């Protein structure tokens, strides 16, 4: 078999050596590594993947063709056996190489197969109900092994989407009842406590720091999204007139509690994450103070009874994100700076589309706002390049 992959790698190593990127000794070691089987692994993996995929698809087709004829106990029993096998396999893979691609893939497949099993039981016994119960059950069962053993970005985001989907399904069913019972705030606080406690509970495991960082980023991201959104609602509406049943204020109180929790937790985690090896703080404390004060800003329009002004809402939104951009710039937080610039640009774009009526005016508005956005993008790019030349990039 012609070893095209190996030939390409050897050529690349030679190019790197000639360009002075690697020295001759490193080039020799890389070439020896490739000659020892590095080139063959790609073919082996491809054949394994295609072969295993074909077998799996064939088995699935055979089962699907006879699905009705199979008794429930056989179908569910086979699914249990598959899940147990996946569990044992995943345990062995995690032990062999924690965080390795194989282990992470098996954890993802096991997690998905557990969700599929819940659906399978529901379908087999024709159980009636909403989406929240199966999703919450799945999350409760898979969260311990996901947080304790999972490390990859894919698994962390799968878990995050699972949490978001479960919360959305729960909110759809229970939000009004919770608001009537004035329990939205308590639920938001409990949820945050669980979110912050999860990495602490898994602190004995090597994956805990990764999850801590992930929750930190989620907390700050959620805060950055919730604060101006909530404030914009407040600046847009007349609260007493909009909601005579006072359901909305309770939901808003809950969101403010969530914002406060996210701000405090986010600041704590951010500060902890941004210390140097000798314990000194990195960055600018003003950004931390600004983040901590965000819940107060979110509550402000509601405390004054609402603004009843879309224009005020738009200006306040842009001002908030400009402030985020400024403080992020001061703190050297490039990620938040980029986010702030992008969101201000989007808000301006939507404001132009909203403001101009008619095709001709809309066209003119789009040209104007497009030019403005191009200018902002160019300025941001120039700033980031200049900044990257001065100091290495840091993110929260």
């Amino acid at each position, binding site marked *: 078999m012609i070893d095209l992959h190996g030939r390409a790698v050897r050529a690349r190593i030679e190019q790197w050596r000639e360009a002075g990127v690697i020295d001759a000794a490193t080039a020799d070691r890389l070439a020896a590594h490739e000659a020892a089987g590095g080139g063959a692994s790609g073919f082996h993996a491809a054949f394994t993947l295609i072969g295993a995929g074909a077998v799996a698809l064939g088995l699935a087709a055979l089962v699907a063709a006879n*699905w*009705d004829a199979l008794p*429930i*106990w056989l179908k*569910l029993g086979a699914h*249990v056996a598959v*899940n*147990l096998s996946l*569990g*044992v396999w*995943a*345990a062995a893979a*995690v*032990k062999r190489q924690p965080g390795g691609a194989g282990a992470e893939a098996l954890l993802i497949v*096991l997690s998905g197969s*557990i969700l599929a*099993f*819940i659906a399978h*039981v*529901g*379908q*087999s*016994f*024709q*159980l*009636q*109900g909403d989406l929240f119960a199966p999703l919450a059950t799945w999350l409760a*069962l*898979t969260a*311990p*092994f996901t947080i*304790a*053993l999972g490390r990859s970005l894919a698994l962390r985001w799968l878990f995050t989407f699972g949490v978001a989907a479960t919360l959305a399904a729960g909110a759809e069913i229970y939000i009004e009842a919770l608001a009537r019972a004035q329990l939205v705030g308590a639920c938001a606080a409990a949820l945050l406590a669980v979110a912050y406690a999860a990495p602490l509970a898994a602190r004995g495991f090597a994956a805990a720091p990764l999850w801590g960082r992930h929750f930190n980023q989620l907390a700050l991201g959620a805060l950055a999204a919730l604060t101006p959104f909530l404030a914009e609602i407040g600046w847009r509406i007349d609260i007493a007139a909009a909601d005579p049943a006072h359901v909305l204020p309770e939901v808003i109180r809950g969101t403010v509690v969530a914002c406060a929790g996210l701000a405090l937790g986010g600041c704590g985690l951010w500060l902890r994450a941004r210390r140097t090896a000798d314990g000194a703080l990195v960055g600018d404390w003003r950004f931390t103070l600004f983040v901590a004060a965000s819940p107060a800003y979110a509550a402000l329009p509601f405390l004054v009874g609402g603004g009843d002004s879309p224009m005020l809402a738009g200006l306040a939104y842009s001002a908030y994100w400009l402030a985020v951009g400024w403080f992020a710039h001061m703190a050297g937080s490039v990620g938040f700076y980029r986010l702030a610039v992008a969101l201000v640009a989007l808000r301006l774009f939507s404001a132009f589309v909203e403001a101009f009526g008619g095709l001709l005016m809309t066209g003119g508005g789009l040209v104007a706002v497009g030019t403005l956005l191009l200018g902002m993008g160019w300025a941001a790019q120039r700033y980031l390049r200049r900044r990257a030349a001065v100091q290495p990039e840091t993110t929260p």
Partner: protein
Amino acid sequence: MTRNLSRLALLLLPTLLLAGWAASIALQRVAQPTLRIAIVGYDPRDLLRGHYLQFRLDLAAGESAPCACLDANPADALRPLVRAVACDAPPTPAACPHFIESPRQTFRYYATQERALELEKLLRDKPGGAAALTHFHGDGRVSFSDLVAAP
């Protein structure tokens, strides 16, 4: 060793718990009272949602009660009589073996694609032309185990 065992427990316990849950449903189902009840399609334009047939129970008058006991109907075996009861103080299983919450709610029945299309045709051609074997869980919830053409 302990770490290996805890890792294995984390990965196997979810499946074992769910297997126990499935077994408990199967065991409870044997003891649950059942009734075969005629059904009607929920929306004649859109009976099927994917593999799910959407339907309502074709009950005699009174089915709009939030909670009800279904009693055998001597005049029509597939359309039980509806006796309204209080939701917050449901009767004992002896007094009301067929207790149901929201009898007018829309139910879903999962079937394979071919079977779902057959059932859809059955209900479209003749409303009430199919009947579901309904299992009463005792707490107001119901589930179904069989859906066939009504005799």
